[in-house]
């Protein structure tokens, strides 16, 4: 199953179906007076065709494996989500600290001292944004 081109086609088909099926729920209208569903339906049909072509072609061509390492992307997404949640319920300064400490798990080396320095630096930048550039940041 680990076939790059097959997965590529399948992913595109998935997107086209998601948009195509939903667009059927909107009025299609006629060609001379297109409704809101017409254009997305046409585009997703075209995308479906391309996805299907890629799938068919992948069965003929040589296989190439897909390299997918979930670790780093999960860490990065978790640090973003954590930043947003902490900023929402506590404050953004803690969010920044969390972002630095969580994200750097994905780096090649981990150092608490360096993270503390970095977090402090970014907090200073955030304060400067708020005070000097007038961004509305819920810092504290």
């Amino acid at each position, binding site marked *: 199953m680990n076939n790059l081109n097959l*997965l*590529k086609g399948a*992913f*595109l088909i998935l*997107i*086209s179906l998601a*948009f195509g099926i*939903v*667009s059927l729920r*909107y*009025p299609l209208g006629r*060609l*001379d*007076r*297109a*409704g*809101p569903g*017409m*254009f*997305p339906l046409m*585009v*997703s049909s075209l*995308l479906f065709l*391309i*996805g299907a*072509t*890629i799938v068919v*072609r992948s069965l*003929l061509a040589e296989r190439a494996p*897909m*390299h*997918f*390492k979930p670790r*780093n*992307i999960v860490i*990065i*997404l978790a*640090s*973003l*989500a954590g*930043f*947003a949640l902490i900023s929402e319920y506590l404050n953004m300064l803690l969010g*920044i600290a969390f*972002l*630095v400490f969580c994200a*750097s798990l*994905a*780096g*090649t*080396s981990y150092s608490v001292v*360096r993270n503390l320095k*970095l977090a402090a630096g*970014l907090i200073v*930048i*955030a304060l400067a*944004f708020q005070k000097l550039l*007038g*961004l*509305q*940041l819920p810092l504290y």
Partner: protein
Amino acid sequence: MDILHNLAFGFEHALTLQNLMFCAIGCVVGTLIGLLPGLGPLATISLLLPLTYSIPVTGALIMLAGIYYGAQYGDSVSAITMRIPHASSIVACIDGYQMTLKGKTGLALFTAGISSFIGGTVAIIVLASLAPALGEVALLFGPAEYCALMMLGFVCVSFVTTGSLLNGLAMCLVGVLLGQIGTDVNSGAQRFTLGLPFLADGVGLVSIALGCFGIAEITKNLDAREERTPFNKKIHLMPTWPEFKRIIPSALRGSVIGSFLGILPGGGPSIAQFAAYAVDKKVSKYRAEIGSGAIEGVAGQAAADEAAARTSFIPLMSIGIPENAVMALMMAAFIIKGIQPGPNMIAGHADLFWGLVASMWVGNCFLVILNVPLVRYWLSVFKIPYSVLFPSILFFCCIGTYSVNNSLDDIFITATFGLMGYIFLRLELDPAPLMLGFILGPMLEENFRRALLLSRGSFATFITRPISATFFSIIAIFILWQLVTFFLQARKSNPPRGQPV
């Protein structure tokens, strides 16, 4: 003489203290992000978009344009010194890095700087003389022509940026579909909002750009786990006179090629570099040396690179159709500032248009000053370890996303597109055409519906009108050519097989 008069008018606007400052900021930021991994021009322009809300129109656009061509230049510095291009300077790696290996880094950097300057200057002359003329042609365009031109743009971009028509076109279409999210302008129907109120206005441009280009790119770099070795060699900048004489012809050739290729749909810096390099390899007096660290191998492509980066503004400003992803983002910036790029822009906002053109030349001077005498200091940014860099980039992405609407929900959207962009990267789908599709999508739908409305539902309108028929036949030729090459390859690489695969 008209051009001179207009350019003088433009310089009046570009040389105000405020605009000079914005131009300098744009060039510095652009060079910096061109040097550093993790943020390309697409991500940076979208990151700074919210900051430009409070800046006057001309200044904001001058700064964003500066970021674009500054990044183009910074990228080539990193390609020459360390053979790491982040965006498009793949060609600079060949001869530029060979020159570094020979200990002639300074000469390579000087060549690139001077050639870029020459390329930029030629491109500005082309821009100033061609854009108004093309604007008059664009007045003949109706909705069918706009549709055809956008489709041609999709096909060309797909082919140029990804090398595979199917992959690129698929990404354009995904972008168009993402652009459909939100409220339909004609009927007011809410489309694909999943019932979420914050999607009623559509997905934010900044979220998509930062997700697909910022976060996905960072993760890709982290996956590679390579630590870069900083550049520590000596740099001797000034060339000798015979060396200097070799730069000029090659740079002029590159400028002309770059200016021309920058205008075509789907064109832009990357294809211009390859073309200029190929031409130099054929016609240069020193063609035998190219590939092993020749001055010509650096000069031609650097000139073409900068020239194309500037002339790619022509279709945007005169016709109103961006021809690649970065220009699509620039168009979004124009629209945010309340200016509709297109045939009426040059007449309606003459100060802005000529000011922007003139500022490109000012930016050129800044880049030469920044990059030739000061290049040593720039190279010290490579000493920042990636473990410090990437959390900072994430931080800027968060702040940038948040400050568009002062909404923390947007960070979740950015994270979602980060995941999507990462999947695209791992599936070897280049997300750049997605950006173009996303920005052009609503315009394409609008013009498509209008064209069919005018023709009472008949598709014949796309092929009976001469201009749109020409565009569609070019598209057809492209697709046919792709099909033929595919079948020829399949026949060559697939000898009859006995056993099932």
